[in-house]
């Protein structure tokens, strides 16, 4: 009898774990770590970044929240993260549909975009890794700032939920690192940048 109870408990526990939803924290804002860059920025989220959740993370397959599924697709981790970086770095920012729209906008000083360089999520023997190349251009399309940010996180466990939570931490770390790096270089203070962004040019 005792043994049967143990088996039933084990089966129930396994079923509950498999069916539980992962409540991930949305990335709305990042911790401030310095003054904002006094420029108006346009940011562009590439279609590649919009697709990344579904493409690379099998535990995020399927749209919306459901039994055994996460809410990641609805949370829009990457688009929201890029927007959070722009808000944290620049005095003013807005999303544009294409890069050209950003360059053509007279109210914009600089254009920011990011490109996924590498991702590691499916090999359970390695930690989760996200590597993104971040770029900021002047209006004449010359590169003002560029960096490749790598964020790495080891999941607490191998099953779906710990890995989904670890992915959330890894993405947040990526966006926080990117914001810190963009604010750190003081690239916007060089005379050449001031000249490039003069309103009468």
């Amino acid at each position, binding site marked *: 009898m005792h043994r049967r109870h143990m088996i039933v408990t084990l089966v129930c526990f396994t079923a509950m774990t498999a069916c539980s939803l992962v409540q991930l924290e949305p990335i709305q804002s990042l911790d401030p770590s310095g003054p904002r860059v006094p420029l108006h920025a346009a940011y562009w989220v590439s279609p590649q970044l919009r697709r990344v959740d579904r493409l690379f993370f099998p535990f995020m397959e399927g749209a919306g929240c459901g039994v055994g599924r996460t809410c990641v697709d609805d949370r829009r981790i990457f688009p929201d993260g890029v927007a959070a970086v722009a808000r944290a770095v620049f005095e003013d920012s807005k999303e544009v549909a294409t890069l050209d729209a950003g360059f053509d906008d007279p109210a914009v000083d600089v254009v920011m975009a990011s490109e996924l360089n590498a991702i590691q999520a499916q*090999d359970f023997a*390695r930690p989760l890794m996200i590597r993104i190349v971040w770029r900021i251009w002047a209006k004449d399309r010359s590169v003002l700032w560029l960096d490749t940010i*790598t964020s790495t996180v080891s999941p607490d466990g191998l099953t779906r939920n710990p890995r989904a939570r670890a992915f959330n931490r890894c993405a947040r770390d990526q966006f926080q690192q990117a914001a810190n790096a963009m604010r750190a270089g003081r690239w916007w203070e060089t005379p050449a940048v001031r000249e490039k962004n003069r309103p009468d040019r």
Partner: protein
Amino acid sequence: MLSQTRAGIAVAVEPILDEVTSKKIFALDLPRLGFIPVYVLVRNLAGNPVLLQKTSIELVLPGQTAMPAGEIPALASAARTNAAAVLGWTAILVVPIAAIPTLVLQDMELRRAETTKRMTEFELPDRTLTPGGSAFGFVYLPVKRDALPGRGVVLTVRLPHVPADDEGETFSFEISGP
């Protein structure tokens, strides 16, 4: 390792051409497969930032157009790796005699997957090098070892200033073929 210092910028490069070193670092003989890994180290001690981008690193063979460092090739796909694993186990259980060639294929596919991961991990990052900054890593030039002539091969590393108002500094290294 070949190195040069000019205008406060130091650049060092080391192409990996031999099979033993390539296998030690990447698990496969990459130059035989058509990708020569070049270790690049850049240190900016000048007063202005410079732009380090993999596409600005090129290999020039005599009489040919320059070949820029390329994207990391997909040497193995997840689907092929999984299929190889399934085939391997099926062969062991059902047709033991067919297991050996299947396992060899499976091992090759897993090694290719491992190589792609290592290439990604060790890749040179694109970045703005601020004064005092440095970066290092591998770029992968899309050429086979056998296609390299004994002499006249030049590797160029172009580092434009940021904002890119001029050409910046270009470093050229002559590389000896195998």
